[in-house]
């Protein structure tokens, strides 16, 4: 069952339709409701390996629906601590719960000051309005 449109408070957003939940020098990252809605039901998550490095604004994986594939952009730089195996096994989890069970990676931030460049909820909603 697809989730209803929602952009929670308390997350940081990236204009490429990614979110990050910051916890000290770690962050959990995923894609927003808008991103999963645009793609449709996901059938594949081309996941990176734990231990790999991700770079802010660069692709770290791909999500695919029947019709289309899209890069997933890292909102922040760091090292991957964990990949969400539930999404690897059942990619539609992202459609069902994009901010909860449908998270994609957990990272250790290499430069926590990068967080300041991310969008808050209001700024991200402006991005959605303008797109």
């Amino acid at each position, binding site marked *: 069952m697809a989730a209803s449109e929602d952009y929670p408070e308390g997350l940081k957003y990236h204009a490429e339709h990614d979110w990050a939940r910051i916890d000290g020098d770690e962050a959990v990252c995923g894609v927003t409701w808008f991103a999963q809605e645009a793609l449709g039901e996901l*059938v594949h998550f081309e996941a990176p390996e734990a231990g790999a490095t991700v770079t802010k604004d660069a692709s770290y994986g791909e999500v*695919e629906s029947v*019709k289309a*594939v899209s890069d997933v952009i890292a909102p922040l730089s760091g090292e991957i601590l964990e990949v969400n195996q539930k999404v690897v096994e059942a990619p539609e989890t992202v459609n069902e719960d994009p901010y909860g069970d449908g998270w994609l990676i957990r990272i250790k931030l290499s430069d926590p000051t990068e967080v300041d460049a991310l969008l808050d909820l209001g700024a991200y909603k402006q991005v959605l309005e303008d797109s």
Partner: protein
Amino acid sequence: MPPDTLLKTPLHARHAAAGARLVPFAGWEMPVQYEGVIPEHRAVRTDCGVFDVSHMGELHVEGPTAHELLQGVLSNDLERIGDGEAQYTLLTNERGGIVDDLIAYRVDPNHYLLIVNAGNREAAYAWLKERELRGSEVRDASDEYALLAVQGPRALERLGLPDARPFTHAMGEVGGVEAMVNRTGYTGEEGCELMCAAEDAEALWDAVVAAGAVPCGLGARDSLRLEVCYPLHGNDITPDTDAISAGLGWTCALAKEFTGVEELRRIKEAGPERKLVAFTMDEKAVPRQGMTIAGGGTVTSGTHSPTLDQGIGMGYVPAARAAPGTELTIDVRGKDRAATVVPKPIYKREES
């Protein structure tokens, strides 16, 4: 092409009102999905779905020499069908390449209806018009009609239509709308394609949806046809690919004379250098059109199969690597992914 120059079918307002996602396709603004590709795909495999395929072209070929004209330009043998029957066939060029693949419906010996691909409507019409014989006339009537594909194991039952043999056609009525009922389709399921006057399109659509058909978009149409290995013109077959290499030799009556037949006989005799094969992915990966197959091959169609829940596709490979069971390596955006050649179709409906 800017959106305002895209063509719209008579059902465009219905699609927009239903919240369909509309995309450009072959010069038309068409629904790619309503609720989602996967539920729509499943509806067709298990029950019944309806597709607006009014963007396809309808060409009437009429006159005492209509049959002779078509016998000379179409690959299949129209002598094999009678009035009220239909035939899958190819419009071929001098090189044996495929100008279009289409279905010819025989109304009577002096009247055939050809339903052609949307993207080839002009090319097919021009091709035929140039070759008109004295006593035959080709007319593009595409704008006069709407075409609805109602597909799935319960399609005919839901529409209250009698069962009929595949590749037959008859006039019928659905929801008070008169339509040509064609027992043809592009999904590998039972069902029909209903052709009605453009002004009746909304009434027919409403009746079909009210009968329980799930509105489906081009996304599901593509995943359904690829599971059953029906070729898509522009992807799997083109003016530069021939029927023998594409595995469509069965549509070519090589004993008769038609455009390109000498070249097709030569390819048949020598054996094609490459073949269009079907494959399934051995790893979690989705093949896509244009990806390279190691050893000199190319993916021509690829998707995630909702029925099999794995990546599937078709592509050309050297003939020596075309046997089912052959292992292929496909470059999926920079990563080598294993696939295996499988017999066509990839998915086969269980006989009931």
